[in-house]
């Protein structure tokens, strides 16, 4: 594979601003080459190396679901060199993609189980992918009950408002939205994610909890889930790490002997407990 480090070229099809502060945008890419699109077979939870050619590369989780054909979506927060450049780019600009990389959510193993999706803030992108995937008409009956708990600082920070509205209308998903502080016009839950999870108290029987969010949220939520008798194997987590190559060669994303880009980014709590605490 001489193309290991060569990005596939895409064009930006649309840019959606996701929050009030305007530092999170969702980009939709279409491949310039049809073969590339055919080869880009991914599962929710995988990531890709996006590059603004000439500026650099960064790993971003895929926000679209494989069931949404024709394009891929990424939600990018303005943080460093490359992501800032993304926020400067316009529709039609050329962007390189390498991927899909990483293991992704174990959608096959999750079949027949109840799914509890717990997300906080900006980390919801791959969870959106997962939810969308499960909700697709081909897949919905393969999974049990779907609960989505999504917390944010305030209503302005809530991502994917369009999708959330769509999901809310369906009866095969329990959608719980929460914000940290009370706000005028907000009719849904108020409070941090962990207490809300406790309130909703999803059953741990034949269920899998998927948790993504800021470290403190993960820590508190996992404590709650353990209270609800979720086993270590039943809690899934997606990690972030600094990456360059995305294919396990550049060396920097290792936690112990595991590379986040190859063996991750999705780890079960049981796996994480075996790894040294260096993430």
């Amino acid at each position, binding site marked *: *594979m*001489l*193309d*290991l*480090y*060569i*990005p596939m*070229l895409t064009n930006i099809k649309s840019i959606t601003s996701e929050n009030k502060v305007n530092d999170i945008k969702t980009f939709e890419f279409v491949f310039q080459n049809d073969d590339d699109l055919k080869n880009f077979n991914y599962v929710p939870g995988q990531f890709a190396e996006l*590059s603004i*050619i*000439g*500026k*650099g*590369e*960064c790993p971003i989780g895929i926000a679209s679901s494989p069931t949404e054909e024709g394009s891929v979506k990424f939600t990018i927060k303005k*943080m*460093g060199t490359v*992501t800032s450049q993304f926020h400067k780019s316009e529709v*039609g*600009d*050329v962007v*390189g993609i390498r991927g899909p990389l990483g293991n992704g959510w174990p959608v096959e193993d999750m079949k027949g189980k109840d799914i509890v999706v717990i997300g906080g803030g900006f980390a919801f992108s791959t969870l959106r992918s997962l939810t969308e995937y499960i909700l697709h008409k081909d897949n919905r009956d393969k999974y049990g009950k779907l609960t989505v708990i999504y917390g944010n600082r305030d209503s302005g920070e809530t991502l994917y408002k369009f999708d959330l509205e769509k999901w809310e209308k369906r009866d095969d998903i329990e959608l719980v939205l929460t914000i940290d502080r009370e706000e005028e016009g907000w009719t849904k839950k108020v409070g941090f994610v962990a207490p809300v999870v406790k309130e909703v108290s999803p059953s741990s029987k034949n269920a899998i909890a998927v948790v993504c969010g800021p470290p403190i949220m993960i820590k508190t939520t996992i404590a709650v889930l353990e209270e609800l008798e979720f086993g270590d194997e039943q809690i899934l987590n997606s990690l*972030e*790490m*600094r990456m*360059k*190559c995305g*294919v*396990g*060669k*550049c*060396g*920097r*994303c*290792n*936690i*112990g*002997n595991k590379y986040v880009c*190859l063996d991750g980014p999705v780890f079960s709590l049981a796996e994480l407990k075996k790894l*040294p*605490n*260096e*993430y």
Partner: protein
Amino acid sequence: MQEKIIFKKEIPKLVKELTKEYVFYAPKNVKGNIEYKRVNNSKDIELEFLNSKVPPKEIVFPRMETMFTYTRNGKNIEIQKPKKVEDKNIIFGIRPCDAHSFVLLEHFFNFGEFKDDLFLNKRKNTILMGIGCNTPRNTCFCTSLEGHPFKKDDMDIFMVDLDDRYVVSPISDTGKEIIEGLSWLVDAKEEDLEKAIELSKKAESMISTTLEIQDSYDFLDSQFSDPIWKEISETCMGCGSCSFLCPTCTCFDVIDEEDQYNNRGRRMRIWDTCQFCLYSLHTSGHNPRDSSIERCRNRILHKFSYYPTNYNLIGCVGCGRCIQLCPVNNDLRVILKKLNEIQKKEEKTIVA
């Protein structure tokens, strides 16, 4: 195949013949440092040397390497893949430890689903024509790591220095082919071979450092938060000398360079090291390996614990470069001895 003899005075002839087909790399004295450089004239070759300062990994994994170039035309971008390198290389005079490092590198870059062809192509086209170490250094400890100053398995052609001549033994098939091509070589006599064996034994006895590393990696893993790491890393300054010049270190950084005046650019990889704080710094400001304690630990564990677990190989060849080059004399042998002591203590308590 029969061992051959090549006299030192015949080296120019050898170089002349091999440079016809191959790019000939040989140890060269560059301002007092021995480095493996491209050589066309046999006069440039430095045959009297202990080991090179820059490991020969530089030939197959250069300090900087273009991953692709591109040209920009308005908003459009066209990517040009790097040309497949067809040059055939010979590394003359490579030492057994460095030859073994090639095995490790190849294993690493070839591991798993993703194969790094930038490296593998170069490796495939590289022939190792090594020389046994008659006089290993004090800092050498290859015998503790399944190596030997006369280990020939990792090379294509192996030579033993007998003062005025070399005993040449072809090892791999390509090596045999090359030796067959050099029809003017004379067969080695029995006494030469005997002398070579004698030298090998002598060299082995000269290696003074013996470390017990073989089975300690499981143990190392469990010592993740031992205070020993603080002790080891206290004086480390966080420069990259040890890993930049390590024959088995493979980490790289990826950078983009744009020549905006000519509408072109390139993406390249350059050597990087886990000893830099920037290496694992997240954009958010969080750094999983924030201090020299974690960084030193990562280096040691990567070589002696993660490598064995992942690939069944120890990620060190015992060349001793990091020992010689560390500015604060943070001696790897001492570190390993300290770790060994802890292990022994632990075993004792378990037995007791």
